[in-house]
């Protein structure tokens, strides 16, 4: 480690945060999970201009930033960028206490993560609501992921309550946490350690208003995580961008398989490149779209099926010979299958033993299929079949 994370925060943070250093309580450790770069730095936050802060509300001696419940075009653009995996691990807000509306000592306290996309999704649902928002330091990671890692956890919650002196801000002792934070937080331990009562709110931010209006009561629908098309497709661009090593490999392999460098080179290159790039599209875009409708329970099998269908279809399009078509199908299947299997990490219902089984049973067939397909392509290039 070249630099201790704490040193990234100057001692006089109050001078950079004129409002109140306690309200803008800086993270005590800003190292991201990968240990390369800090998620939040004081340099990064002013660049976002913190335009979501519209003013300050005074509570006791302190000023707490009030945030807008409307997203600006910059927020929308920022959300779009991280979905395309641009700057995703640096998209954070400072942990600490915020306000929406004009909250008082009896207003609810909503706890959330410091991934800005998460923070934005919450505040945009809070129009007309007076509430406090306690942002935990989850290293810029969303609630569910951070709860799995333990950063959205019992200890961080307890420490953050103390750091912002929450007991001086509200007269009650109830915290509303997102339900998906329950993987990292133990409500009875928080109660035992700090006296604060944790109420798990709805899974989705869009239900928070109904939850608050209904006296912190949830119905079954608010508890259930579903994985509808819109949510599946929202993460698809990230999957596509993260498949870049595969895209690069396909480009390189196609360039080699197109040799020799003569008049027919471009045609030969494209006849391999396009079907395989298409297979990446099948695995990263078509698979999440069709997830509930494709037979089989293993994601890799679903993906292999889609890959095979794509391979057959594209063979007709490029008018491949029979061995050529076989080669395309043998290569398209494992590409689509692997990317589909990777989607388990983005899905909302897969268990670890299941994922382990898929990997154990799937990797060798995938590698073999790809190798045979590549071999067959080489053979069809050399022998005039």
């Amino acid at each position, binding site marked *: 480690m070249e630099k201790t994370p704490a040193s990234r925060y100057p001692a006089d943070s109050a001078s950079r945060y004129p409002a109140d250093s306690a309200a803008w309580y800086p993270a005590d450790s800003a190292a*991201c999970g990968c240990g390369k770069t800090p998620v939040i730095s004081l340099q990064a936050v002013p660049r976002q201009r913190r335009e979501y802060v519209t003013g300050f509300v005074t509570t006791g001696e302190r000023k707490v930033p009030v945030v807008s419940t409307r997203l600006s075009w910059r927020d929308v653009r920022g959300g779009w960028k991280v979905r395309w995996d641009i700057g995703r691990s640096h998209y954070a807000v400072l942990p600490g206490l915020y306000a929406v509306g004009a909250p008082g000592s009896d207003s609810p306290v909503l706890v959330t993560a410091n991934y800005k996309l998460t923070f934005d999704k919450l505040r945009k649902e809070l129009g007309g609501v007076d509430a406090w928002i306690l942002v935990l330091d989850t290293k810029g990671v969303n609630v569910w992921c951070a709860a799995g890692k333990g950063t959205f956890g019992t*200890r961080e919650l307890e420490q953050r309550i103390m750091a912002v002196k929450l007991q001086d801000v509200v007269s009650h002792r109830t915290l509303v946490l997102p339900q998906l934070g329950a993987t990292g937080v133990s409500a*009875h331990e928080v109660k035992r350690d700090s006296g604060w009562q944790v109420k798990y709110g709805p899974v989705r931010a869009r239900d928070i208003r109904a939850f608050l209006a209904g006296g912190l009561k949830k119905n079954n629908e608010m*508890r259930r995580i579903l994985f509808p098309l819109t949510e599946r497709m929202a993460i698809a661009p990230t999957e596509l961008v993260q498949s870049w090593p595969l895209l690069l490999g396909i480009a390189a392999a196609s360039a080699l398989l197109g040799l020799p460098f003569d008049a027919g080179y471009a045609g030969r290159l494209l006849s391999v490149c396009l079907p395989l790039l298409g297979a990446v599209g099948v695995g990263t875009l078509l698979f999440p779209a069709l997830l509930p409708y494709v037979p089989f329970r293993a994601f890799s099998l679903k993906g292999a099926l889609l890959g095979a269908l794509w391979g057959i279809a594209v063979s007709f399009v490029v008018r491949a010979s029979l061995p050529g078509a076989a080669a395309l199908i043998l290569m398209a299947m494992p590409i689509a299958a692997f990317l589909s299997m*990777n989607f388990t990490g983005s899905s909302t219902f897969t*268990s670890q033993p299941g*994922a382990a089984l898929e990997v154990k049973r799937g990797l060798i067939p995938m590698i073999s299929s790809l190798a045979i397909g590549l071999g067959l392509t080489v053979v069809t290039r050399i022998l005039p079949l």
Partner: protein
Amino acid sequence: MRMTYLKNGETLSLNSALCTGCRECIEVCPHAVFDMQGGKAMIADRLSCMECGACMKNCAAGAIKVKAGVGCAAAVIQGMLRGTEPACSCGKADTRGVTTEAKGAAVGSKAGCC
């Protein structure tokens, strides 16, 4: 639409003798795995359980046990390459700044690699 996966819920167990009927497992489960029967929780839909561990973490009576982990193939592969338990790509640095109680538990993510 209810989507199910492989081997879901196999490590989940509920000891009814310890259950106090507080309903917290029902509150935190995102897949409606639990239901109440005669004032105690019961496992109603094991196949929907993704073994996230939220119920165990919030069972004050200690009646629920589950081997919590991330259902992520990339994490499994990372673990194989490193010879460790399944972990997201950030590896061992991941637990830095994470409370000790969480270190033994799931270290991972549900989205790409976060």
